[in-house]
């Protein structure tokens, strides 16, 4: 068995460049929005969440139905951008003060109550194509390959970032999240028990943030503390002090 040679770094970067040219995205590189957490940012190509692309977020466990954590995670991302945000829902159940607490001021968000998913996707796409907004968020249950590709192309064309919150009516339908779509990254946010405080009370919420799919990157999962008042996440204390090797080993064991 021949020993595996480590490829030279310039060879790798050359290959990356050629792939990018094939994808035709070089001219449209919009940069990335860093999370401000080194652990997460270095896992993502470009050092953050790619702008002008489609990203999917779903809740884990009961969160697949209520989408509470996914909504707040998304609001946190939108809060760190500049400009107006359009939030499309089928039926409204967001509580605006909570969105404002994640750093997304009420003056920046316009909500659309679409009534059904077909209209929602049409509004989602039109808003992306317009290009005047910074982020468009849509809460959908079904996202087919065709629909997601349309959204991705619209986002690429205008530079508006698309965030799709996947939210289903029943827990059993959440298996749909395994179906392939054209999104660039795919996240799952599940709640974790919070760290006990020295006094009675509830501390800052903690999430298990799974990066399930990432184009030109690897999967990873992080234990983070929920968005603060400016939409920023923070790494959980015990995770911050863990060595990368231990994490890789844990991931292997999980597979």
């Amino acid at each position, binding site marked *: 068995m021949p020993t595996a040679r480590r490829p030279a770094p310039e060879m790798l970067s050359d290959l990356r460049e050629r792939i990018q040219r094939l994808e035709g995205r070089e001219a449209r590189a919009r940069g990335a929005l860093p999370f401000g957490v080194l652990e997460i940012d270095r896992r993502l190509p470009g050092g953050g969440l790619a702008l002008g692309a489609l990203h999917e977020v779903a809740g884990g466990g009961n969160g697949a139905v209520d989408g*509470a954590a996914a909504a707040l995670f998304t609001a946190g991302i939108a809060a760190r951008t500049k400009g107006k945000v359009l939030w499309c829902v089928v039926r409204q159940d*967001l509580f605006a*003060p909570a969105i404002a607490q994640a750093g997304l001021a009420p003056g920046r968000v316009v909500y659309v109550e679409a009534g059904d998913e077909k209209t929602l996707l049409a*509004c989602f796409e039109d808003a992306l194509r317009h290009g005047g907004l910074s982020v468009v968020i849509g809460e959908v249950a079904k996202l087919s390959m065709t629909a997601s590709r349309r959204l991705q192309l619209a986002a690429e064309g205008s530079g508006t970032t698309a965030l799709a919150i996947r939210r289903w009516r029943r827990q059993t339908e959440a298996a749909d999240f395994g179906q392939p779509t054209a999104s660039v990254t795919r996240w799952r946010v599940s709640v974790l028990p919070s760290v006990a405080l020295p006094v009675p*009370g509830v501390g800052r*919420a903690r999430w298990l943030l799974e990066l399930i799919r990432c184009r030109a990157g690897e999967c990873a999962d992080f234990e983070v503390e929920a968005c603060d008042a400016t939409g920023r996440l923070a790494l959980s204390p015990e995770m911050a002090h863990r060595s990368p090797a231990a994490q890789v080993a844990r991931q292997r064991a999980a597979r």
Partner: protein
Amino acid sequence: MIGRSGSRRTVTAADALAESAGLHVGMPATKAQALVPGLAVLDADPAGDADTLHRLAVWALRFSPMVAPDPPDGLVIDTTGADHLHGGEEAMLRALVERFAASGIEAQVGIADTWGAAHAAARHAGAAMVIIEPGRTRPALAGLRLAALRLPDRMRSDLHVLGFSTIGELAGQPRAPLTLRFGPQLARRLDQAFGDVPEPIEPVRSPDLVEVRRTFAEPIGAPETIRRYSGKLVDALIAELEGRGLGARRLDLLFGRVDNRWEAIRVGTARAERDARRLTRLLAERIETIDPGFGIEVMTLTASLAEPLGARQVISSLVEEEEPDVAGLYDLIANRVGERSLYRFAPVASDVPERSVMQIEPLALDDGASWVDHWPRPSRLLARPEPVETMALLPDHPPVWFTWRRQRRRVRRADGPERVFGEWWKREAEAATVRDYFCVEDDAGERFWIYRAGDGEHPETGSHRWYLHGIFA
């Protein structure tokens, strides 16, 4: 009101007070005066009534592009393609009645598939607001009296003599003998009410509106052709608006079909607008909703709501970064989902969670106000608080466990209580009510916002039941 029919003077209208004194419409004037001494009598003015009705019809154009007077005492409005802008049929009717009530007119409204059925529903169904679902016209009309059928008085009384009293009885009869006896009008009215024969509405137009019109020698029907000509009409309308220094807030595009029916499209904009491309796009979105039938002869484009629009100063990029203009996008979406479904949230100074937000227009001025956030708030709020079963120590301990949607959860950590008092200064019923909110976390880390109605001590403050109101992230 006393009017003259032929050589007789009869009562043509009476107010509620007069009716309670025993007067009714159609009674001879002399009899009425004999019945009530000192009766205040006014001469009827049919021409004035018709004029007022016409003005009322022009006013009602704000609800739909197709409105016509339905003399002597009604308006007929074709709401096809317009009701979604008002949040559905029921919301539209309610708004209509409220607007009329505000100007001192007591209105009865009915909505149905056909003009005839709506006429009957509004006047004879016995309720102030009647909605006949699509396809339910026949059963809905069957029980109504013959008066609902818009027949001459003479014919109606003759039918009574023959023993008919409801529309259902008449509709079940063979047509030939009836037509032989009463002429073609009876059958036509029946067919019009049931929708078997079309009954076109000749919409009123207001004289001072900006309007452009195009007549076709050869009827058109293909969607591409309609789209092209609507583009040309928009260009012509904009030239007209520009001359007057106006911008359109609402456009009505009416199509006159060869079979004498009218189809309409209505679009609205959030701001006065004079951009041809944008307006054409808004109209083009809705062209697929109209049915050209055998072809379209006339197209009329009206700016039914126009506002002054002068030149706008564009912020210099040296001073400030220019905000991208999203008004066009909002118009596109609002015309698709309805104006009420596109909004921003704004804070309201209220401690009661469901009253602390209100919906405002997307382009409303942003004053930077936000909620006063001392306490974390759940990201999802249930439309209605759902009752949960709990076990908790009174008066101010969080529950030890609770059962929501048949799932029992043990409470690991909790915060609270956050006491919310009823708004006694606004509502009498909330003089003493109290809610105690807790944020609780279960074993899995899921967090919920639950509250107890009442302070846990005094029964007048609430039922002491527990409810789940929101889900935290």
